[in-house]
């Protein structure tokens, strides 16, 4: 128990540092802003109680908001992400279900499963985030392009990190 709290605490801090120090500073033509910190929500244990998942999502968003000076924006997106995660897990569930007490990792459930799972979650998060940032429907398709491009980049980085984790 204490072991896993420590482990997730470490993951949390590492991802936040990566996000705040590295990815928040990436400028790529105004269309691409990768948000890698949601990997924390991705990696929490499958059987985590929903209320805890929601609270952790809320805390994650709040801290990222704090660093990027946009109160509420990331928080809204992460809380929604935390809310839909159990449903996404149900949609992408492997045929013989999940092993009890396992983490949603590429090592256990394979690349294809992890890819689908990440894609759903990242799409939900980025769509909410970017439309909240623009906060009007006038540039609907341009915002959609930003969502898709950023999703592509976030996915790439998340998969790379996951591969690295598997390698260890």
């Amino acid at each position, binding site marked *: 128990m204490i072991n896993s709290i420590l482990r997730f605490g470490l993951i949390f801090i590492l991802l936040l540092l990566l996000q705040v120090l590295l990815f928040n500073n990436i400028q790529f033509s105004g269309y691409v802003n990768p948000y890698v910190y949601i990997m924390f929500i991705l990696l929490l244990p499958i059987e985590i109680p929903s209320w805890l998942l*929601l*609270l952790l999502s809320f805390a994650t968003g709040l801290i990222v908001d704090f660093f990027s000076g*946009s109160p*509420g924006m990331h*928080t*809204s997106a992460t809380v*929604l992400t935390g809310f839909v995660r159990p449903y996404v897990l149900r949609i992408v569930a492997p045929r013989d279900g999940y092993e009890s007490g396992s983490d949603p990792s590429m090592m256990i459930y394979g690349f294809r499963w992890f890819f689908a799972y990440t894609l759903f979650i990242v799409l939900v998060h980025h769509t909410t985030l970017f439309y909240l940032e623009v906060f009007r429907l006038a540039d609907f398709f341009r915002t959609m392009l930003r969502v898709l491009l950023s999703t592509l980049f976030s996915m790439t980085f998340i998969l790379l990190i996951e591969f690295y984790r598997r390698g260890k």
Partner: protein
Amino acid sequence: MRNLLNFLARYNNLIIFLFLEGIAFYLLSTRNNYHNSRLVNGVRGMTRGIEKRINNTKSYLSLHEINENLAAENIALKNSIAKLVRRESSLFFSVDDSLHKQQYLHSSAEVIENSINRQKNFFTINKGESQGLKVDMAVISANSVAGVIVGCSKNYSVAMSLLNLDFKLSARIKSNGYFGSLSWDGRDYRYAILSEIPQHVLVNVGDTIETTGYSAIFPEGEFVGTVSDYEKFGGDFYKITILLATDFKKLHFVDVIGNMKKTEQLQLEKLFK
């Protein structure tokens, strides 16, 4: 009571979710200038639409009365013209008031926080209310337009950068005086778009673009940039790409310009809008 408890137990996730999402939206709509103003304007826009309709109907019903009033007023005016024509020469007199001739106040400041990679960019400068800065003052960098102050604290001010989708500026082509609306399209921080210039106007690459001073924020004739490209856009207008004179990536020392006669101008204009 049991039913209530059952209900809570069954939907506890949804309730927690709605509660947390509520907090997030509360933060979003109260702590962010941009989102707050969008919401307030949205609500105001809705009520304004309804009020307008009611007003239209009302004014249609009272047209007869208005017509009578106008006719009566016409006669009164005609009478007064007849009286005035005789004394026309004494109607106008000039006032020369040297005390109120100064219109613009200048103050220098330093940029301490800046961004160019968002769709709504803002920058912060190191002077505020204590130094006499106010909302809606113009910010200029080395004689070219940089932004407008949108919020002041005691010693700091936040300015909306020209690189902001909400930034609109009345600008004109210096050589022939035709004016249009300048805004940023969210793509490249070095370029902005000048629209509403009709196609019969002669435009050349390299033409100087300057402010018009119509908005009462920027003084007349401040440098904005030069024409880098133009194309025919839609039916009658050009879409002119402007190479901005200000390099927002190295914005550092800026001048803040306040218009002392702004309130006077706006109040007067309000009467006719």
